[in-house]
């Protein structure tokens, strides 16, 4: 049996409310909140980036896995906001965790699905017998251009999953990937903010690929929505995952534990992985969980997990996503937010 032996998440303590952003641009906050189903979002501290988030999330995953970091043979970090354009994030993460030097390391990038890509590959090489354990992380400190709709959602956070063959908490039952070349959202080399195709990001991009991957994996595994305890879909806003869940035949209560976007925002590569982590936090042995990510460009990775008895042993060994979301947030005004996110032109 190959699956997840430890999982963990990390979210920054700083937040900004949708109202605060709306007021800055003369928008009606209620329209935004109702339209996108977003209340607030996490904001990384000035000293946080994809690497530091990945390290903290991985430390939580290690607490649950209870393994020697030196036994991890692969470290994969998925993000669209790697702090370096050239130089891996994974080496820093692995060094901080004490995993180097006998380890295979790679960074992944595929917009919002870089995290599940890292999981896909981590799982596969453990299953192939190449390494004993693989650490896969999805983390981001995503940027939305000032005034753009993305500014209400683009947030920071991440989750880490350690794959292995012993002490499995969530067995991987099935995988499936559905990908086409669809330019719905992009950021060119050297550009600070991403651009997107507006409504083109919906039906031809998000919905087409998640529906394709969701239907595909259920067919491949011979499962139907009612077989699952929970399902997690990528959360670019509050509305999309609820809509796509309904269209696939899932009930609202199956989505609820992982639908954390109203308070977290869209953590991009960390979005559906953190929804999965939050779902693990409330799951019981034997339950099936569906995960479908989405990355612009575009594609979706899908996983079916079956929880084992061990979830009850490891759940309390690290902080839960709900605790991270609710722990004493520090709210920023737009000025501080702009300063934290490097949106103010400074003298160099």
């Amino acid at each position, binding site marked *: 049996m190959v699956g997840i032996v430890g999982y963990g998440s990390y979210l*920054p*303590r*700083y937040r900004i409310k949708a109202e605060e952003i709306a007021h800055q641009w003369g928008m009606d906050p209620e329209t935004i909140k109702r339209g996108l189903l977003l209340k607030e979002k996490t904001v990384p*501290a*000035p*000293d*946080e*980036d994809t*690497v*530091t988030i990945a*390290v*903290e999330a991985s*430390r*939580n995953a290690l*607490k649950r896995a209870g393994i020697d970091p030196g036994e991890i043979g692969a470290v994969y970090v998925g993000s669209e906001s790697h*702090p*370096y354009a050239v130089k891996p994030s994974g080496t*820093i993460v692995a*060094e*901080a965790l*004490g995993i180097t030097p006998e380890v295979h390391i790679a960074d992944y990038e595929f917009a919002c699905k870089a995290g599940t890509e890292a999981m896909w590959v981590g799982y596969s090489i453990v299953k192939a017998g190449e390494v004993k354990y693989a650490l896969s992380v999805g983390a981001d400190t995503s940027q939305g251009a000032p005034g753009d709709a993305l500014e209400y959602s683009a947030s920071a956070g991440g989750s880490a999953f350690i794959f292995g063959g012993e002490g499995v908490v969530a067995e991987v039952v099935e995988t499936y990937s559905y990908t086409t070349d669809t330019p719905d959202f992009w950021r060119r080399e050297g550009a600070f903010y991403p651009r997107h195709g507006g409504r083109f990001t919906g039906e031809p991009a998000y919905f087409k690929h998640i529906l394709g991957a969701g239907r595909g994996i259920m067919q491949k595994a011979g499962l139907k929505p009612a077989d699952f305890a929970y399902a997690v879909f990528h959360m670019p806003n509050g509305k999309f995952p609820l809509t796509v869940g309904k269209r696939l035949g899932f009930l609202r209560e199956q989505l609820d534990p992982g639908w954390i976007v109203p308070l977290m925002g869209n953590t991009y590569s960390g979005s559906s992985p953190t929804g999965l982590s939050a779902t693990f936090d409330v799951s019981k042995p034997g339950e099936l969980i569906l995960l479908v990510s989405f990355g612009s460009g575009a594609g979706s990775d899908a996983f079916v997990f079956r929880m084992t008895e061990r979830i009850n042993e490891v759940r309390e060994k*690290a*902080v839960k996503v709900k*605790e*991270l979301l609710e*722990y*004493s947030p*520090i709210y920023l005004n737009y000025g501080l937010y702009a*300063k934290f996110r490097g949106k103010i032109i*400074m003298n*160099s």
Partner: protein
Amino acid sequence: MPVPRYKREIPQRYRLEASKCKSCGKVLFPPRLVCPKCGSREFEGVRLSDGGKIVTFTVIRVAPEQFADQTPYVVAVVELGDGVRITAQVVDCRPEEVEIGKPVRLVFRKIQEEGKTGILCYGYKCVLSSLG
């Protein structure tokens, strides 16, 4: 931050690697070649614990250029579980939340940047203990 200097301190900055004197048991951070307590030169490697308490602190409001965009920031002397003291920033808090004696936990953060195009320098900082 010149790259060779940065790279050399990584075991301490990332993983809190210290050394313990085989003769008198004193834990040294960073490791040294000579024990300042007993003069011994025999050590074993140990990792410092990631929890401690604030011995004293300040809020830096006038900083060197390298840290100017971080002001105001809290710097503290922290005593870790093993009795070792370090200097580190206390982050993710309002300065008025910080007090002598308060428990803290070490986290992994970016400490400084070498301009807009140079290397990023990471290491330990503290947050006030609350969540695991």
